[in-house]
């Protein structure tokens, strides 16, 4: 069945370091992936997306890597800042439409 999950529930980094958050998915038919950031008391906020015909996409300070061979997705955050502290979710879409299936999230803590 559909399944999106994360390897690590928590990640703690020092300010200025690079962060890598991982996500495993099980459905090879997934054709679109999104990373969301959720701060405490707020709804998820779009960070970056990638389609299954790509293996890398870069944004401002963030990079998403997709490895379809091992069904693995990662989010890299460069020069992590205290404002990056939040829970990060990966979500997948299968077969068009708008339905997203979310994983369980990784809590990123940035230490000053």
């Amino acid at each position, binding site marked *: 069945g559909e399944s999106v999950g994360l390897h690590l529930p928590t990640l703690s980094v020092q300010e200025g370091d690079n962060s890598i958050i991982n996500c495993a998915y099980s459905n090879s038919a997934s054709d679109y992936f999104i990373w969301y950031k959720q701060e405490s008391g707020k709804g*998820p906020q779009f960070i970056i997306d990638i389609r299954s015909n790509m293996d890398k996409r870069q944004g401002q300070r963030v990079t998403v890597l997709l490895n379809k061979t091992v069904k693995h997705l990662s989010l890299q955050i460069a020069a992590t800042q205290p404002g990056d502290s939040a829970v990060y979710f990966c979500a997948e879409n299968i077969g068009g439409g708008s339905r*997203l299936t979310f994983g369980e999230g990784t809590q990123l803590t940035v230490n000053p």
Partner: protein
Amino acid sequence: EAGVAQSPRYKIIEKRQSVAFWCNPISGHATLYWYQQILGQGPKLLIQFQNNGVVDDSQLPKDRFSAERLKGVDSTLKIQPAKLEDSAVYLCASSLAQGHYEQYFGPGTRLTVT
């Protein structure tokens, strides 16, 4: 541009009581979603509307949950009667149209059932 609005932000009820949540999506967004987010988990889709029609309600517990979007803009989600396991944050999101994957989320309503 105003974001997705939800009310109330917090609600505490006793089990077997009823509760309703309201959502106003971003202006012009045809697709509206309701998600349930249990503490420590990712959001789970309950129902998706395209304008005032239901596109996907396969994960909505229809014996107690109902939702409507009568005029294709605002939406309400109702739980009747509530159970303890309904304690969660209820998130509303909207997107331009079906097939537009970027969804914009509201702040959510935190429901506690005692």
